[in-house]
């Protein structure tokens, strides 16, 4: 057991800090600090900067453009990034389909897709869920029928985050109705510009347009866009879910949020003093911080396992559960800190061109949408109930 970093690690940390400090665009940092949604061009801009430095995908193997860092370095990197107001990584390309492609894809697929994921040029979305298939994903019905060298895809996908701004989607489709449900599913990469794809906005409770209902009508997908074997899609999807859950631990993000919470509570007044001096509020912030610390150490333990080459099992669900709960706790405390100024809801304030004075304190406007949207975190990526089912079965053997 050893918690200390080597000199080399410490030097690396300084390097990352200096780099981020010198290169993170001020306008992006400001938006992150305010908790505003960061739009696609800004995220691409930042990813390009990281890409040029060779740091776009720390977790990828070196041969595909990764860094080759060990678990400790990756942790240090994330940690150093979270000390600054860097935008959250959009997971679909870098954390989800990318690893899937370099693990199960053909050489042609790797060549075609990985570079543009890495430099942020192509934007991906995930097409798994359907109206009738949420937690029970294996019951999905979107059909793909092979016709010559194309699949013809028909059906409806829903809750597709970013589908309206994505260039590509990775989808699960039904290619067979024989045997168990899981055994007839294939994994397709689909160009969003293909005729017959129609994403429709779904407005969420925070008033934003994050996700979509996407209709597929006779959409032609070349066979070479299938990942791995036909009817083996479920295996790949499960592999990917493992990845998704780990990235969902959100330690760095939560640290950013905690910082924002403290700074807001420091500004807010209560009983004539700073809200951070209010005992009961300070206690709740401290409780959240303690939870976050224990979550961070849980995360470190998993990293250490991984570094030692031991496989991580279903325990990884713990990270998803705790990570998302902490996120909700922090966003909730933040709106609590605002008092009455949680109520004003003028979404225009969050858009770039807004230049009127803010309603109440300038940090207020972005917080309520953040809180509301954070309610989704315990639903997507396999709901927390489903994660608990998984732990009960796979870890506890219940």
């Amino acid at each position, binding site marked *: 057991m050893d918690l200390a970093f080597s000199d080399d690690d410490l030097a690396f940390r300084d390097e990352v800090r200096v780099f981020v400090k010198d290169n993170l665009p001020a306008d992006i940092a400001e938006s992150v600090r305010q908790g505003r949604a960061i739009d696609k061009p800004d995220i691409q801009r930042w990813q390009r900067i990281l890409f040029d430095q060779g740091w776009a995908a720390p977790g990828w193997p070196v041969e595909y453009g990764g860094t080759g860092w060990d678990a400790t370095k990756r942790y240090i990197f994330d940690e150093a990034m979270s000390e600054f107001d860097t935008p959250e990584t959009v997971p679909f390309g870098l954390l989800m389909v990318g690893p899937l492609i370099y693990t199960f894809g053909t050489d042609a697929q790797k060549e075609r897709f990985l570079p543009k994921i890495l430099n942020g040029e192509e934007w991906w979305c995930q097409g798994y*869920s359907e109206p*009738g*298939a*949420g*937690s*029970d994903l294996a*019951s999905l019905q979107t059909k793909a029928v092979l016709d010559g060298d194309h699949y013809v895809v028909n059906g409806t996908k*829903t*809750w597709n985050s970013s589908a309206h701004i994505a260039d590509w989607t990775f989808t699960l489709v039904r290619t067979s109705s024989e045997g168990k449900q899981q055994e007839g599913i294939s994994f397709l990469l689909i160009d969003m510009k293909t005729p017959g794809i129609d994403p429709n906005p*779904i*407005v*969420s*409770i925070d*008033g934003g347009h994050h*996700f979509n209902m996407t209709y597929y009508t006779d959409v032609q997908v070349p066979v070479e866009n299938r990942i791995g074997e036909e009817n083996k899609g479920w295996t790949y999807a499960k592999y990917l879910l493992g990845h998704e859950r780990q990235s969902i631990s959100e330690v760095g993000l939560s640290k950013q949020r905690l910082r924002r919470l403290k700074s807001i509570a420091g500004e*807010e*007044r*209560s*009983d*004539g003093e700073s*809200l951070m001096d209010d005992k*009961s*509020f300070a206690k*709740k912030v401290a409780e959240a911080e303690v939870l976050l610390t224990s979550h961070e150490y849980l995360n470190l333990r998993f990293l250490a396992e991984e570094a030692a080459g031991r496989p991580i099992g279903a325990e990884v669900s713990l990270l998803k559960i705790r990570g998302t709960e902490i996120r909700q706790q922090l966003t909730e405390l933040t*709106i*609590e800190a605002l*008092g*009455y*100024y*949680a*109520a*004003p*809801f*003028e979404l225009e304030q969050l858009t770039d061109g807004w230049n009127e004075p803010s*309603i*109440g*304190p300038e940090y207020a406007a972005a917080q*309520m949408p953040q*809180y*509301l*949207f954070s*309610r*989704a975190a*315990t*639903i*997507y990526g396999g*709901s*927390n*109930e489903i994660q*608990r089912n998984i732990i009960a079965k796979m870890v506890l053997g219940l």
Partner: protein
Amino acid sequence: MDFSLSEEQQLLKDSVQRFVRDEYVLESRRKLVASDTGYSEDNWAKMAELGWLAMPLPEEFGGIGGGAVETMVLMEEFGRGLVVEPYMSSIVIGGGFLVAGGSKEQKTELLPKLAAGELKLAFAYAERQSRFDLNDVECKAEKSGDGYSISGHKGVVFHAATADKIVVSARTSGGSRDAAGITLFLIDNNSSGLTRRDYPTVDGLRASELEMDGVAGTVLGKVGGGAALMDEVVGQAIAAICAEAVGCMDVLQETTNEYLKTRVQFGVPLSKFQVLQHRMVDMFMECEQARSMCYMVNLKIADEDPTERAKAVSAAKVQIGNSGRYVGQQSVQLHGGMGMTDELHVGHYFKRLTMIDTMFGNKDHHLKRYADL
């Protein structure tokens, strides 16, 4: 001891229920929320016609003379419908101030108009530094001629844009956090020196920031008697908003239960999973507890002992805050992706419940107040 409604109260309940059912399907509410005023003048006129605006006002001034239980009945159903008309601001609070503090002339002039739907009121109390302390007041009122001139900022004033007159708390003496030295004033919404910034709120209502620079105000109640008056009327408002919250929670509890029975995953309705059953039971128990406290506070709000009254108010607000949070958050959770959509009514009830906790002090504030009483 008796927790049942009288015959008249039951009739009142039936008629509000009808109104909510007919006028308040989610689509029509959505239109109201998006409209210029944020609610419907027709609905307001209907409420006047049905006697609801007059309900809590005294008979001698054109009212019906109902008590807290009648208001509770109305507010609960309004909660079920997520009604956006300014009943709370105008009648419960504005009317409450006139009844408790208004002079004979003010009552004679204003109450009949209020009851008839010809006058609307709002209440400006929050300031940037005040958080939930009603007595943390920096707005200043100075004597000018035979009236007062008010200057300062008020924040998140619900329904200010459509009010004819606004009740404003301002300091006539004392330091900024003293209970003594606060006076309530009535100001006209079109006064010179008043600048308003109007905006929507997250739960579908309207509010404004007020900037006052020498606005003319007439005293409501006694000079320096604002704190006591606010304590009394805000207590009544809290009792009423608890009822609204109970209405919201019941709808969420019923809807979620229904949804779990119809939504099939893994080949069975979600209601067959024990974790979800137990979660629903916990939601149900929260609803029942909230209802108990809602009855309690509405029955005790007229108690002669001010400490007993204040304790009842704070205890109820704490319970409502806790229950509302649990029921709201879990309703979204158990609806999965659907719970996150703007289209489904669940999110709107959730947002209203979230903001009800903040109104007049959240659970932490009232827990502290309760402990100090």
